[in-house]
């Protein structure tokens, strides 16, 4: 693959320490397009070796609106089936520019390690010093020891190390869309983290046409139904949870977006600083970036104050545990005290509910947001949602943003991928891939 790609699949065997590279074959892309289409395929190829597969879509890291997504595909500790988790913030983009389109991690390391992917180089690094650390300390350590604050880290915490099925792979310091217990899979491999930094370049087959169309699309999107809305608070409104909007607003510092995503799906809550503060605070850890609206809503439903909910989500992220699951436990137990909840994290176990969401993360709200997509079934996590998520995970589009931007049609994404790569992919191929990844 010459375009919108680094043309590399990385295979890392943690057990033997062997690192090999395969080319990303045009033929594979012609049949499986990319993103979850290819991570699923790679998972099948290596499934006897319990792989964790990372990947990006062909549009990831481009100027196409919402092109933020990377993917982890692995067997879910919860369901025992292959599932897919979104990598948002800047992690999907950074993965794309590391020089690897796909990364297959096999085997179990003899001692704790982290995988360092940078500029087409993969290094297995010793993680003894951070094994046992919480997610925040581990991320800080990696960034500091490698000398760069912009390294994106996929990190697990003590939850993963103790084998919790609720363990989550966090992104930098924050929660992620991993509701499948992939953290446990990392822990079982003695894999503390995957650190990403790339300063590569993606060639485009028809650059002018591609970029022209991106600009046209941005123009359309700027007139779209979500414009003027921002952050988790407005996502709550779109979900019909207006009181949650009011509940959270007093703590909102700023809203921020994942890479090239026109809607700011993340909201930073200041917990120990005045949210109106604009200057850089002295307090090194003044709050928490909420990336998971459903989890925050879960804590509201459990009866926590917004500040307590923020504190508990911060504790969840440090411990590396899925906050949505923790919220469910709180609802069941009636526990509202943040300190007690935090203390209980290490003992939480037992089944948590999983909606009928196929193999995609139910971290993304289960219905269209802000817009009425022209679809017959938009019921909670229904057929429309699954197809929409499949498309987002195939092309590399932010899964929450995909649910608020009908302008990003399947036809358009195909057209853009064809312009970007010079391939001739069509709706039949896309339908087949969607059918496969949804089955």
């Amino acid at each position, binding site marked *: 693959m010459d375009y919108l790609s680094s043309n590399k699949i990385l295979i890392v065997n943690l057990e033997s320490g062997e690192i090999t590279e395969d080319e990303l074959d045009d033929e594979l892309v012609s049949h499986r397009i990319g993103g979850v289409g290819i991570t699923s395929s790679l998972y099948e190829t290596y499934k006897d070796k319990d792989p964790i597969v990372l990947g990006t879509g062909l549009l990831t890291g481009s*100027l196409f609106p919402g092109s933020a997504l990377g993917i982890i595909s692995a067997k879910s500790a919860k369901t025992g089936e292959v599932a897919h988790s979104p990598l948002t913030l800047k992690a999907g983009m950074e993965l794309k520019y590391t020089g690897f389109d796909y990364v297959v991690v096999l085997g179990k390391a003899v001692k704790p390690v982290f995988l360092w992917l940078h500029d087409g180089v993969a290094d297995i690094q010793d993680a003894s010093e951070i094994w046992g650390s919480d997610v925040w300390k581990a991320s800080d350590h990696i960034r500091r020891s490698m000398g760069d604050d912009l390294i994106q880290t996929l990190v697990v915490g003590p939850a993963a190390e103790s084998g919790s099925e609720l363990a989550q792979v966090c992104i930098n310091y924050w929660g992620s869309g991993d509701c499948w217990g992939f953290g446990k899979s990392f822990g079982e491999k003695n894999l503390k983290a995957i650190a990403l930094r790339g300063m590569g*370049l*993606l060639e485009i087959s028809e650059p002018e046409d591609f970029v022209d169309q991106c600009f046209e699309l941005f123009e359309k*999107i700027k007139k779209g139904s979500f*414009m003027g809305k921002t952050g988790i608070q407005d996502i709550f409104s779109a979900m019909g949870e207006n009181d949650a909007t009011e509940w959270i607003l007093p703590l909102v510092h700023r809203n921020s977006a994942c*890479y*090239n995503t026109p809607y*700011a799906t993340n909201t930073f809550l200041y917990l120990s600083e005045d949210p109106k503060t604009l200057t850089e605070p002295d307090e*090194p*850890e003044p709050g928490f970036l909420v990336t998971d609206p459903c989890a925050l809503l879960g804590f509201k439903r459990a009866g926590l104050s917004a500040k307590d909910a923020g504190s508990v989500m911060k504790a969840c992220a440090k411990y590396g545990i899925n906050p949505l699951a923790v919220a469910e436990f709180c609802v069941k137990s009636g526990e509202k005290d943040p300190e007690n909840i935090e203390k209980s994290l290490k003992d939480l176990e037992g089944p948590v509910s999983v909606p009928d969401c196929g193999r995609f993360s139910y971290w993304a709200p289960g219905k269209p947001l802000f817009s009425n997509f022209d679809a017959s079934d938009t019921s909670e996590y229904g057929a429309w949602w699954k197809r929409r998520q499949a498309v987002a995970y195939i092309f590399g589009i932010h899964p929450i943003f995909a649910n608020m931007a009908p302008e990003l049609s399947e036809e358009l994404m195909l057209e853009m991928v064809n312009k970007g790569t010079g391939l001739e992919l069509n709706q039949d191929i896309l339908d087949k891939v969607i059918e496969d990844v949804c089955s």
Partner: protein
Amino acid sequence: MRIDVDALKCIGCMACEMACGYHRDDAFALLASCIVVYRAREKKDYFGVVIKEEESLTIARPEGLEIKRIGVAEEPGSTGQKKEADASAKPMLLREPCDLCDGMKYGPMCVKICPVNAISLVEGGE
């Protein structure tokens, strides 16, 4: 004409940075862009935008705009720290200064692409 940034509107999506990178490289890459979202203070939610211009470095912070003239003074202190008001003689040396996307049909691409209209083209030199 020059680029102006309202950092409080900015959502840190980096679309401007990638668009500028495209202008420089005819491909998707970030290393050559003259507009950069600074995001190193992630845990503090402190982010903004830096633009390298011909004679100045514009730092759009949440609390306001700061314009540093390039190379005005350069006596380092005992620790080597620069005076706060000055940019270095060659800040972001390998990045070309903003040319307002000279030769591109879209005009300044960062202005065009910013989804929240945080970036605008304003009258006046540097």
